[in-house]
């Protein structure tokens, strides 16, 4: 009952051809290469923002896709990390890498606290608890002095990386974001394919059995939760430096919904799905800003049709075709 993701992620068994055996490596190289050349064709700021969201969605997907836990409050880590990164860069004058680290560490701590509460319940309750805790922290963010309330933290300096490289240069900033994104992505990949990740998947498939095999599943779930929150935090902190602002939007519940949507569209439990999903959703958001009023409705329709018709998401569907 706990399983949320379709089991389409398991590597094909039988006689794997070279392409199939290395599909993920090839896809990764294509993605990395694509992101390296993309800024020559697309607006770089858009790409940077999209990469931040993609990493955010990947972090979220680590929980839902590989542990079967639906967090409906991931904006908490994303948003608070972006606040702390923005504040430490602007007020404490930290260099960007330290500011991002501060934000990420904040998210890790918050993840530890929220995670240890939330994993006490399963399934739907887990989703509701994460949502409620995130909403509580949204109110704290609203009332706290340093967040600037509705105004947010504005005019955050991008600063000098390691005190040397000026990140006001778009190219330098782009490389930093690319490195963080690819690094975070590989980290998640590594986690999933480690023995630790195998235990997570075992918990997803059948928690009682994992317990009876002697695994302390709560501890595994908590570690996964903290990892997910931390990576989400890294994404949020990076975004604050890129866009030079931190705002309430990123801690509010619609953001938690958006990251679910991104992962769902791309494919829950597929490693590339959240990346594809977040690019698709963001692109839609900007292309559709012309039709204004209907954004919410269109998002809702995508949600409904994904759940009813394409539960595997874009990448999941492609993978299914590919496997025949």
């Amino acid at each position, binding site marked *: 009952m706990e399983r949320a993701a379709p089991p389409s992620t398991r590597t094909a068994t039988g006689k794997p051809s070279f392409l199939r055996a290395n599909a993920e490596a090839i896809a990764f190289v294509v993605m990395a290469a694509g992101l390296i050349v993309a800024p020559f064709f697309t607006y770089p700021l858009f790409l940077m923002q999209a990469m931040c969201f993609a990493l955010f969605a990947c972090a979220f997907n680590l929980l839902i896709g590989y542990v079967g836990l639906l967090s409906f409050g991931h904006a908490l880590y994303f948003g608070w990390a972006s606040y702390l990164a923005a504040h430490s860069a602007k007020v404490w004058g930290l260099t960007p890498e330290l500011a991002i680290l501060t934000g990420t560490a904040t998210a890790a701590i918050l993840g530890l606290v929220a995670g240890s509460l939330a994993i006490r319940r399963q399934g739907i309750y887990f989703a509701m608890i994460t949502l409620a805790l995130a909403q509580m922290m949204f109110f704290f963010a609203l009332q706290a002095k340093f967040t600037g309330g*509705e105004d947010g933290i504005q005019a955050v300096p991008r600063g000098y990386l390691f005190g040397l490289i000026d990140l006001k240069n778009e190219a330098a900033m782009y490389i930093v974001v690319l490195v963080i994104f690819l690094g975070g992505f590989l980290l998640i990949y590594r986690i999933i394919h480690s023995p630790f990740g195998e235990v997570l998947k075992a918990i997803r498939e059948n928690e009682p059995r994992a317990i009876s095999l002697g695994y302390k599943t709560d501890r595994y779930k908590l570690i996964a939760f903290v990892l997910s929150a931390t990576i989400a935090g890294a994404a949020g902190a990076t975004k604050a430096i890129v866009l030079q602002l931190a705002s309430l939007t990123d801690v509010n519940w619609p953001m938690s919904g958006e990251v679910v949507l991104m992962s769902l569209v791309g494919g829950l439990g597929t490693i590339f799905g959240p990346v594809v999903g977040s690019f698709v959703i963001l692109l839609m958001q900007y292309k559709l800003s*012309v039709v*204004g009023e209907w954004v919410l409705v269109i998002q809702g329709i995508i949600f409904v049709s994904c759940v009813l018709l394409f539960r595997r998401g874009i990448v999941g569907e492609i993978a299914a075709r590919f496997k025949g």
Partner: protein
Amino acid sequence: MKKTLGLAALTAMLLGGTAHAQQVTVKVGVLSDMSSLYSDIGGAGSVAAAKLAIADFAKANPNVKVELVSGDHQNKPDVGSQLANQWYDVDKVDMIIDTPNSGVALAVSQITTTKNKVFVVSGAAASDLTGPKCNANTVHWTYDTWMLANGTGKAIVKTGGDSWFFLTADYAFGHALERDTMAAVEKNGGKVLGKVRHPLNTNDFSSFLLQAQASKAKIVGLANAGGDTINAIKAGAEFGLSKGGQKFAGLLVFASDVNALGLATAQGLTLTETWYWDLNDANRAWTKRWQAERNAAGKFPTMVQAGVYSGLTHYLKSVAALKSGADGKAVVEEMKKLPTDDVLFGKGTIRADGRKVHPAYLLEVKAPAESKHPGDFYHVRATIPADEAFRPLAEGNCPLVKG
């Protein structure tokens, strides 16, 4: 990188200047909230106002070609800043107007000054835009929190409402409104008897109202906005606030909020606005045109939408005078130099800090029986002259103003 861009822009400008003699093209963007909380205050109505401004301007200035784009920031600062960046860099937009939501407006103001374009704020309230966070590329047109607080506070004390109790939304915006209003009340001889801070999006205000009633203050000041203001007033009507001789003063109330309350509930509420559609014949005539453009006969324009018309008109005049819209700072300088004059806000000026000044009106919501036609919401109780309505130049701490 930046240098080459600047050079390119310069050459383009020079070439452009010689190629089409005197033919100027500018592209303006209405960046507003089309889909969420503030869509009634700005939104599609702001786009309609901008279209009217462009049409009126084109009649007198055929040599200036104006293109219009519009976008939805969805009340998200990151979406707004992304759109603004893209408009300036890719779509070659020269100026952005409207932008309700202070968070978005502050972000866009920042981007505008780094890219040397023009930003005219009509929808956002933050008085920081012409205070510590002012810059040479931003003009704040319609209203701000200081003006609302001060105008309402002072005018009400002068008409006898000298003891106050505040219901304050517990975040930066509410705190600022409360602080500025308190200062105005006390400066004019009034007393503040107490206050209670309520969280944003409170449904049930009855508990806070009991506290307000117990204070026996004559005026209950609402330092909040939108749904919170509406819920507080609804509860006030129910708990018989007015029977105890108490009155609400709304510090940020739009006509759309009054409409949501209905006159029966809202009657007696005092508030401040800088523009009201039923104030004079010119406004009424414009409102008819706006309704036709908006294709909504039952809707009435807000001061924010009127501000979009007025601000855009003045911007276009300044571009016409300069014969170019390329250099944002120069255009804003020209805007500050030229006296403003349009059918909606009359004559006025823009100060060194980017603050547009004009009179404000203390309004009181009519009782249902006094309302003669749809949209007939207010009695005008007092006019606050332009030089008193806004924060004095010296007090804003705007770096552009040399003290």
